[in-house]
């Protein structure tokens, strides 16, 4: 039942997504402090503050999935909290902005959580479809 739900929600999430927005053939890894968690539809996001030039913080917007999808991936709403130090491996946006979709989030103690893009790892792009 859980597997069926996960498949259903993954299909929903992928179909909601544009192939254009993220480059699934690339990987970027960033490390920083969680500023904000948006546990929301249609997509959930984490805002991560990452060190840039000395004295500079770069704010990354990282899509992590959606509430239903993430529950099926083992997340809870409070799995990640503001102030947490985390490392995020993601597929970056094609527009070069500090924006991407999460493959894997790793906590300081080594525990990991998958994002929606973890399930399209290695492929150039998910099936085509409209945004959302």
């Amino acid at each position, binding site marked *: 039942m859980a597997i069926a739900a996960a498949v*259903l929600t993954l*299909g*929903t999430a992928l*179909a*909601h997504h*544009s*192939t*254009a*927005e993220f480059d699934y053939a690339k990987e970027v890894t960033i490390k920083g402090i969680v*500023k*904000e968690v*948006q546990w*929301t*539809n*249609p*997509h*959930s*996001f984490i*805002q991560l503050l990452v060190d840039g030039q000395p004295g500079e*913080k770069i*704010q990354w*917007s990282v899509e992590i999935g959606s*509430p*239903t999808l993430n*529950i099926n991936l083992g997340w809870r*709403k409070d799995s990640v909290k503001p102030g947490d130090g985390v490392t995020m491996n993601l597929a970056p*946006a*094609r*527009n070069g*902005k500090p*924006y991407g979709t999460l493959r894997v989030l790793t906590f300081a103690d080594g525990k990991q959580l998958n994002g929606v893009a973890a399930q399209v790892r290695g492929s150039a792009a998910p099936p*085509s*479809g*409209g*945004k*959302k």
Partner: protein
Amino acid sequence: MQQRSSRNWTVLILPGLLICIAGMAACIPGATVGAAAAGPDSLTGIWVPNAAPQQLVTVDGSLPPLNEAAAKVYAERRRLRENGDTSFDQTTWCAGPGMPRILTMPYPFEIRRDGDFLAFIHGWYRWHRVVDLAGGAVDPPLPLTMGFPVGHWESDTLVIRTVGLIDATVLDAAGMPHSEQMTLTERLRVLDDGRLEDRLRVEDPDTFTKAWESVLYFHRDSAARVTDDVCPDRIADGKPAVLGTRSPAASPLQKDAPDGVPSNTAAPAPRLSGMWEPKTFGFMVPEAPLSKAGRDMVDRGAAAMRDGKIMHTAWTSCRPGAISTMTMPREKILLLQSPEELTILFEMPRMIRRVRMNSTHPNNLESSYVGDSVGHWDGNTLVVDTLGFNGYAELDARGQPTSPRLHTVERMTPAADGSSLDIEVTITDPEYYDRPFTIKRSWKRSAARHPFEYDCMENPRAEDFENAYYVRDRYRPTCMRVEGEGLALSKVVCRR
């Protein structure tokens, strides 16, 4: 402030605070008064709030017993609100109001019951909540805007206990906070004077120092209707997301629509009632015979996608039409059946469709996203004919368009054992398709007692709209989340 001093109540309006002290339904224009009827259907019908309190108070008129931290949050939100900033309230950008907030909004709602499902169909942006009257245990997998309500009857009173309420919502328009530990218990009954009383009990140790109670009243109004309200269109028209006064009673569509009448066929109609889930789901309708005009539109969208743009349809702009529920079955649906009407509640996309049985379309059909549906039984098949679409809907994620000339005929046939439901939809739209065509979708019975919930407007990220192609101009965003600078949190800003 609500203050119960005697059997006689009155309505007062003070600055920023609407005080309901009224019991006199007759003081409300259009109100009808009738004796209370006991039984499971005593609550059914359309109800209009006697007052739409901006601030919830306890039954003795006091401020609810907020703890110190929550009181600070509430005071700050009231200060912001006085300065015109309601960014703490997600209804500002058309996201879900939650409970009991939606009961305090100046919109009518309808209560319908079928078997052990009881539904509140609200007049604000297609929200509905489904109460499980079978009384099953609840273990919410994640909190939802409307939570997981379970009800039972105690004499003439319906008791609804709701847990699993998401804390992004506020309890009242002034921004009263709550946590996800909140348990809301409602006691609903029809009083002798015909009013509906909803006595609320809030238990939330993370927010309040003790449990507290409030009470809301509603009356029947023969002119009131629950219409297909689409909040983003209101913002696009420069109006507030939540109207400050009672919404219009009825559109010409509802006013002039002939009443459905029970069929006089001898055989009882098959039962479609209950929760269903799609056997398969999909995002494409490959068999559509696009006309040149239709093909041109689809090609424009495909070209935009190839150029790296995000394509926005009615679905992605949170304004989906009924046609998308026919072509793209998604998540569970609840069917409520009576001899006069089949009501279909959809969660993704959130929508309510009403099928008037053995009726006809009105002459002065007003177009809408859901159209006007009439139905009749053809043996074991329910035939649903729908006209009056507004042309703002696509068949699928490729953006195959529809026009106001769209006409659908659905043939809904349950399996002999009632375990599945096949729906064959014949689509006619000479504006965009060369000929009528038929698609088939199948559903199966669901054991679920609570519907899925999808709140499309929760997080309108700016990135979604930066490099976008809009199938229709109407789909342009009304509100966008703006990233906070430095340590400042993000904020959703709506256009005016």
